[in-house]
């Protein structure tokens, strides 16, 4: 019956990190860092479905170690030596700030986590995305303006102006004034815009 207490101790030992703190001492050289990734709008956005939680990776120290999330969003790194570490979260569709985690040998159990992007301290190692990432441009819905603004639209527009507005303008003009202006131009030798038009040329 020697084994009974061993089991008990082990069970208690394993429970502690889940219940209270995100840092627990484990026998041996290192410590265990526990944390959680929380994505508030998971499922609301079309990009990340709940099933995609399985593809979120947590990276310690720039690729030294990787771990994945458990279904409840928790993760843990075991046997982490005392010192300053960097935890990054790799999730498609979200931007996470890397977190600086200080594992102190002197007072174990104390959490020292800081977001490196905005230097905000964390009381618990709960990582939330800073923002969602949209990888695609949103296609603008069709609008008349975009057609008008395109080179072809401008061409058409100019044509319409010349075709319909110019004759109107001519008609509104005083014929006397018009003749004077035309003569003036002819004397200068510059062909007027009106003379280029079939209607205008015919009148002269």
């Amino acid at each position: 019956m020697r084994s009974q207490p061993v089991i008990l101790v082990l069970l208690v030992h394993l429970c502690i990190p889940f219940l209270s703190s995100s840092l627990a001492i484990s026998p041996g050289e290192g410590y265990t860092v526990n944390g959680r990734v929380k994505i508030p709008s998971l499922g609301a956005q079309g990009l990340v479905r709940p099933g995609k939680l399985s593809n979120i990776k947590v990276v310690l120290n720039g690729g030294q170690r990787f771990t994945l999330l458990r279904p409840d969003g928790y993760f843990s790194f075991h046997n982490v030596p005392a010192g300053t570490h960097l935890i990054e979260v790799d999730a498609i569709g979200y931007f996470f700030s890397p977190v600086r985690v200080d594992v102190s040998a002197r007072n174990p159990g104390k959490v020292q986590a800081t977001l490196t992007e905005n230097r905000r301290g964390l009381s618990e190692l709960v990582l939330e995305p800073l923002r969602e990432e949209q990888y695609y441009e949103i296609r603008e819905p069709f609008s008349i303006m975009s057609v008008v603004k395109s080179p072809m639209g401008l061409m058409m527009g100019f044509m319409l102006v010349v075709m319909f507005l110019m004759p109107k303008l001519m008609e509104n003009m005083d014929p006397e004034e018009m003749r004077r202006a035309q003569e003036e131009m002819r004397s200068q030798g510059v062909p007027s815009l009106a003379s280029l038009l079939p209607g205008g040329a015919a009148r002269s």
Partner: protein
Amino acid sequence: MDIRVFLLLLLVLVSSVEHGFSLYEDQVGLMDWHQRYIGKVKHAVFHTQKTGRKRVVVSTEENVVASLDLRHAEIFWRHVLGTNDAVDAVDIALGKYVITLSSEGSILRAWNLPDGQMVWESFLQGSNPSKSLLSVPINLKVDKDNVILVFSKGFLHAVSSIDGDVLWDKDFSAESIEVQQIIQPPESYVIYAVGFVGSSQFDVYQINAKSGELLKHKSAAFPDGFYGEVLLVSSDMLVSLDATRSNLVTISFRKEEISFSKTHISYLVGESLGIPVILPSKLSGILAVKFNTLLVFIRVKSEGKLEVVDKIANAAAVSDALSFSEGQQAFALVEHVDGKILLTVKLSHDWNSDFLKESIAMDHQWGLVQKVFINTYIRTDRSHGFRVLIVMEDHSLLLLQQGEIVWSREEGLASIIDVTTSELPVEKKGVSVAKVEQNLFEWLKGHVLKLKGTLMLASPEDIAVIQDMRLKSSEKSKMTRDHNGFRKLLIVLTRAGKLYALHTGDGRVIWSLLLPSLRKSGSCKHPTGLSVYQWQVPHHHAMDENPSVLVAGRCGPHWDAPGVLSFVDTYTGKELNALGLTHSVAQVIPLPFTDSTEQHLHLLIDSDQCAHLYPRTSEAIGIFQREFSNIYWYSVEADNGIIKGHALRSNCIGVVDEYCFNSSDLWSIVFPSESEKIIATATRKLNEVVHTQAKVIADQDVMFKYISKNLLFVATIAPKASGEFGKPTPEESWLVVYLIDTVTGRILHRMTHHGSQGPVHAVLSENWVVYHYFNLRAHRYEMSVIEIYDLSRAENKDVWKLLVGKHNLTSPISLYSRPEVMTKSQSYFFTQSVKALAVTSTAKGITSKQLLIGTIGDQVLALDKRYLDPRRSVNPTQAEKEEGIIPLSDSLPIIPQSYVTHALKVEGLRGIVTLPTKLESTTLVFAHGVDLFLTRIAPSRTYDSLTEDFSYALLLLTIVALIAAIFVTWVLSEKKELQEKWR
């Protein structure tokens, strides 16, 4: 040139600062392709008992755990574990969890079988390195909880399969036993841990499976000693080799006393066949012993008696035994018989009956069979059928069933070593008219549909048709050269020694070649491929020749092993020539000279710093002799902290070989080993094109870039900071960067970043270098840029001087005189860890550059070089703003739209390669790791061509409308004229 500079400026102005690269969601797959792989399979576990999807769970050498569809080979789910998290064992527990043991037995994980979600993860304590064994007993229960037994790092753990809690563990680290096997007979609650103590003692520990209590410890000495590992052949019998490797030893361990029985091998098989190797296949009552190529099956009878059952000459692989109906056990055996493979399924207890015998013809490019996994299924007539999964020499994975290859996966592509390109053949004339007419109609129809799409008039079906049309555009996957140079062949060399040609249009494999020179042979025991180079690029006077590539490799893991060269035609995929070299290959230098057949001259440097010229022709020697004194190279000995410069001296002494040359050391830079350790070097790409040496800055001033092909960037760090991350304090770590001229060995620039450490990734292009490192003080990653300018040409700005001739443009540049250079530098924070760093390259070098950053999330981010401009300031002047200088910010922006991989991941990213196209604005980006990804990007937008979604139909419509309008107005004016005349 001024006009071009002006154009460049204009271009810089036109392209928007925010993002040079962005994509609409419906454009995915138009210019890019993505292929998912898993790597060479190590373990496979089938899950086919239940109705529903048949699947196989595999773990691979790329540290991938994946679930594949047995019918279609698609990946249901896949996880790429870290590089130092190698999978030791895989099994299925409770019929719903995949259990993996990884990281030398310290991490045990359970994955949900249908979707791959990690269910639990358990860290197993232990310090002694040992074998890692995983066993998932079917009906071993402790408190209604199924137990998983793991032996790792000197501990035996019983782990609950529900939540991964360690139920009990037993420490063997104090016992000095080297545990070989953990045996749990299905009918009892006793676990046997067997192993060796020293080399000649055999120990058995009996452990209570419920509590981990030690029940009994038996020990027996075997004076002859053991060699290698033990194999469990039946529930109470183990087999091993003795120390001399000439006897087979059977060990019966479950009785009161451990008994050994020795049988001489040559007595068994009749003759001496060579060194025996026991295959680790579990065949229940039979063991397979391999002698060179001969495989001998030996049955273990009661009392440890052995009997040879069969000898098979060309056997390739044997699977484990699989039990199917009524306790019958079968295993698969694969043989190579004249170019085909012969698959035999045998019953363990009845050797003479072949349950199944199938001969399957197979592509030779797959090589030999290396591993077999067997699975059974019930046929429609309720008899048992078998399917086998085989792993080939080139790492590909095949499923065989009913004498056919059901599917195959080219898993070799998951481990690419090197990449080069080859042009496709030129298009031949003579396209038939009918085809054109049909095309014209199709073309018009397509554009009408497209127009409907842009006008948002298209129905969902139309949209589907449009999307399909765009993706399947036959244009991009044609086998001929195109005007823009988008279509090319990617020639990739994989770790298995196989060469693949991939089409850049759709990523399909055009041909593949398992290089005969890189296969295991008598003279070449451990061949490894090194790199691949363009050998012959015909474009002028050798147009009829096919282009070819040079593959360099070596015959062993060490760098002084003899080299092998192979020349492969890139159109046909045939090996033209292969050379087994007498010298080693330490470095391959492609020289910028070609001979009359457009073969590139290559200089191979061996480990004794002798240079060997290839091709070995007198013409090549002639060309080479002319440039003899202009050839310099350098070598980096990272372990010793030395960089050396070399030059050619004379022909080799002692050997009569006119293609061999001695070298002499010109200079050497020795870094003090107590304070500096080389961790990264970078040079310019040899094929990089620089368009202009001048840079016009804000106030109409000109700066001259210091452009030299011989620039080397070296980064060193403090040896204390080279260890684990997070250990060193900022005070004891520093990063020193150097810019070195590799001809003179002169250090042009040296800079120290205090409180920084590696890893360092660097890229050097034109006159600048960008590098990424970790700043310990801020505890963030940083990227720095150094730009280097030539001051000796600064006076050449005056046009009058140029006209009069008082310039020094033609004055000789001497490497002996100290170059007058000026460097500018700036640092920025960068959020993410980096796996790879590259820079875009274009045909003429006019287009502005983008950095391609492979992030820790296995994505590729394009970052405009203008963000890394040392002339950035907090408040740029109006003139500087016009030049395109971005106001200074402390960190570099990560814009989600500028990920070139958009919402995809290139899992296990290892390298990024950029390939210029003929179209100046555009470049191809190829990212490889476990996955492959290729896309086309335009760093300054496509200023020299119309975009993909340009609507030709709208243009046509406008023209038609304009012509119609002309006629209408003409008619109208005629009428009006007539009326006026009548008046």
